[in-house]
């Protein structure tokens, strides 16, 4: 329960506060005209027009005695503020019930806010990952390596992030004293006004949305039929055709513009040669690789996915052992002869998102589907 006297006191205080907090408002236009009057007179008139109390920062009180002579009337509020800033280096602002007059530079310094953003998510490089060539067996050649070293070409946005921010967000303001934008160890440190921070957050969100644009690549193979004759089909058509094909032979993901691949296969060691060393037949081993490599570099465009496709398959590897026998028909050594089937194609296609491009190799079709995930290009 609340006592009547306490409630009454509360309501009185509430009424008093409501009466006194009527915030000042800027009029549409103001009168800045003065005939040899001190600047303070003009500013007091401005405060009255705003129904505001007036307070002047101690650093600029001296300037209030400056004599003003002009005939500027009916000036829009924002232009009036600009006039004070350029003519007298004064910042005029309404804060609650106050018209506050400060030094332009001090006001800017006071409005600076520092914030740190964790931008490690944007730091990862979308390095290209080209597929390994499928090693073809060359008898007598040095031992093959199953997966050659990948050559990465990392390109990270973070090194250019400060420049990007300076270019995109209030470019002229970054020369002002006190503003900073640096990136170090995954942290973006920005000191600027609040509206710039809002813009920075918006930019980071936009960059993330762009980095979230990815392309899913899937690949099937099937005997030549009529369904692949069209060369390229759209998403709806392909969805209907793919229903009977089961799981794709390859499914992987890449960032917009990135090169990535899917490779799986079997490495078989074969004895491809025999050296005679001190009367002993010494085997020379070599790894042969079979399997499928699909290498795609894809760009999401307004017309679909522009995909450069490199497809290679080595299959039907047959290792036939051949024996070396002594005079008594005893096996003293064995080497393998190798037979393979190899197919491949390199091509560039414009594929509608979710649609598929058909690649005919011999009596088989390969269907490569590219699906844009995330914000599509507009």
């Amino acid at each position, binding site marked *: *329960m609340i006592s009547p006297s306490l*409630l009454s006191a509360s309501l009185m205080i*509430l009424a008093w506060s*409501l009466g006194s907090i009527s915030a000042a408002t800027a009029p549409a236009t103001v009168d800045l005209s003065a005939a040899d009057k001190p600047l303070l007179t003009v500013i007091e008139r401005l405060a009255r027009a705003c*129904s505001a*109390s*007036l*307070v*002047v920062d*101690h650093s600029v*009180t*001296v300037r209030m*005695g400056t004599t003003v002579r002009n005939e500027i009337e009916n000036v829009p509020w924002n232009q009036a503020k600009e006039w004070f800033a350029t003519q007298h280096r004064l910042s005029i602002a309404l804060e609650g*019930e106050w018209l506050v007059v400060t030094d332009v530079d001090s006001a800017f310094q006071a409005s600076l*806010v*520092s*914030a*740190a953003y*964790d931008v*490690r998510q*944007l730091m990862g490089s979308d390095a290209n990952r080209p597929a390994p060539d499928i090693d073809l067996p060359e008898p007598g050649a040095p031992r093959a390596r199953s*997966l050659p070293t*990948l050559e*990465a070409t*990392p390109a990270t946005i973070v090194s250019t992030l400060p420049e990007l921010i300076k270019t995109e967000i209030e470019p002229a303001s970054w020369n002002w004293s006190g503003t*900073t934008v*640096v990136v*170090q*160890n*995954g*942290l*973006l*440190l920005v000191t600027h006004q609040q509206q710039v921070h809002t813009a920075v957050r918006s930019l980071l969100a936009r960059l*993330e949305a762009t*980095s*979230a644009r*990815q392309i*899913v690549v899937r690949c099937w193979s099937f005997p030549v039929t009529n369904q692949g004759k069209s060369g390229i089909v759209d998403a709806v058509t392909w969805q209907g055709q793919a*229903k009977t094909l*089961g*799981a794709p*032979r*390859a*499914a*992987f*993901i890449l*960032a917009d513009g990135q090169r*990535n691949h899917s*490779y799986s296969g*079997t*490495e078989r*060691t074969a004895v491809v040669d025999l050296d005679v*060393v001190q*009367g*002993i037949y010494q*085997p020379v081993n070599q790894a042969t690789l079979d*399997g499928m490599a699909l290498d795609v570099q894809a760009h999401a465009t307004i017309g679909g996915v522009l995909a450069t496709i490199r497809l290679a398959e080595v299959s039907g590897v047959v290792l036939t*052992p051949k024996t070396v026998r002594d005079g008594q028909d005893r*096996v003293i*050594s064995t080497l393998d002869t190798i037979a393979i089937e190899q197919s491949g194609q390199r091509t560039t296609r414009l594929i509608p998102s979710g649609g598929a491009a058909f690649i005919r190799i011999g009596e088989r079709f390969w269907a490569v589907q590219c699906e844009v995930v995330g914000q599509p290009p507009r």
Partner: protein
Amino acid sequence: MRMLWILAFVAATTAGETATPPSWADEISLRPEWRQALLGTVLDEIEKKAGCPVIRSKGVESLANSRVVILIERERQSLRTVLAALGKWQGLHCTIDPMRLLVETQEEADLGRRRPVGISLRDYGWFAEPKSLPGHRDAPTDPNLSSDGDLGHGVLLGGFPGLEAESRKDLDEAMRGTGHLRLLATPETEARLRNTLAARFARMTLPQSWMITTGTLVADQPCPSGLVTVAQAEFATKNLGDRVVLTCVGMNGQRISSEQTRPRNQLTTFDVVGGEMDPKVEGSNPGRQVDLIATAAAGVVWTDSTPAHIDASSSLVRIAFALAWEDSLNPPVERQYRKPAEHHPLSFSGDVGKSSDGSNQSIRLDAKPAVLKEPVVMAVELPQRWSWRPRGVVTLVRGQALILIADHPTGRAVAVIQEAP
């Protein structure tokens, strides 16, 4: 602001609690019209209105006859409100005591309020940043999988506002080694500093927990792929044969790894050394391994205008991953190599000797026994390994999973990357 105070007051009294009575400074009202008045004159006027002594600090006293005040109220205000405006725009600090009013410059007030503060940076995880934890030495490498877990080391506090030069020197030393930070700071600066350190710690230790399910599928069986929902991913994993689940749990931005492998050795070939067969052994590591770094979307770590926070609304996670899956195909191909037997029959060697006069002859014979070296047979295994090493970077919205598929001798190999429940 005052409105909020009033509402809080009403709410408090409604709840039956006792509100703090307004101080005498709230009961006195005045309507100042100080047009270029000297600070000394203003303080005299306030003293007269307040009816109690206004104590001026040395700094204020020195400004009394030079500092000009312009403050024109449009209506009567409480003394507290006027003092607040005077403090803010004249750089003063007013303390309202029961029997007096103390007026200092802001610098004097801050100087008086600064006190020694000790902060152990180690309490906030400084020097304990999650380390990169790559997997097996043969683990897949990838340019995206580089992380030292650092987050703004150095830059975070380097530009921290409110610290004096001496404190900055201490800060540098603390960051270089001991982690014990000693500085002179106001309670507000200390609170902001601790807030910043805590926010960095929270961002750094944001947990990341991911599950990688690998298995095989019959080729004709349909399976969703690419970016799918968690429900689709769970459906897909249920149908997998030879299923292996690897989990990676770590911190935001940390490289973590998991593996299940069966390392083994195979005699794959031999050299010929000194006419003998010298076997050579190679190791292989069939099984499944994964290294990944999961990084939450860019978020605000701290700001000096609002309480530090982590942007929890952001739901993007960037995952750099490298998987390695290797199966040994059985049975291994075996080849035999034979070193033929060596027969060295009984043999003699010697010479015929003559006496000095040439009449006597002698024969000396050395016998070498017959030797039979048995043939040597060396059986070598020729490894046959199927492998798949998908790598990449994927940006997932929370609730999404990634399904990768490749050919496998039994049909299809499937890897599902999803957040661990």
